[in-house]
């Protein structure tokens, strides 16, 4: 699964730590998701999409 969290972070100019704090996870989690090493749960994907103000499909997509 691909994602553009890094791009979305860059647009908002926020660090991995800031995103992690905002959605209540660790920085390792954000790092692992960004690098495709971990696929988040639906709950976390929804939290991220709400944070970026986009739909889940705009952030995550199938390879």
């Amino acid at each position, binding site marked *: 699964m691909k994602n553009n969290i890094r791009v979305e972070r860059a647009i908002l100019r926020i660090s991995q730590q800031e995103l992690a704090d905002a959605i209540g996870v*660790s920085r390792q989690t954000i790092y692992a998701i960004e690098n495709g090493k971990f696929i988040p749960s639906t709950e976390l994907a929804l939290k991220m999409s709400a944070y970026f103000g986009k739909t889940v499909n705009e952030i995550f997509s199938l390879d």
Partner: protein
Amino acid sequence: MNTKKKLFLLPYRFQSIGWIVVGVGVLAFITYFFLKLENRLAVTYPLYASLAIYIGLFLVGFSREKREDEFTLHLRTNSALTAMLVIFAIRIVLGIVLVILQAKGVFRKDGIVENLFDENTSFSSVFILYLILYKVRLARYNKEIKDEE
């Protein structure tokens, strides 16, 4: 995600306590070889030392991380499954090899195959390997994050 609802774990502070208890146990084991203990104490001292190590490892393995979330839960379950598969695969392969060696008369020792499948030994090995895998994986991610900075 709040893993508090999904997995019971001890508070984070128990992790440091666990490492201290492990340290005390290991130290007790080392001193055992230098102390000339007699009678009952010679038997009970190493038992207390190993009990301390077990309690310490339990505290380390089942305490929350600073921020416990679904990724740490994923690492925990993945490590536990890998540990279980590895230990049982090793035991099965060794068991087959020992049975063949015993059948051919190369190796003779009664009960060695049975001891290999001893439940207590299997459980401890699975738990210790789980702990090693989990902590190594977590440390690797922490290192990768630092390298990225």
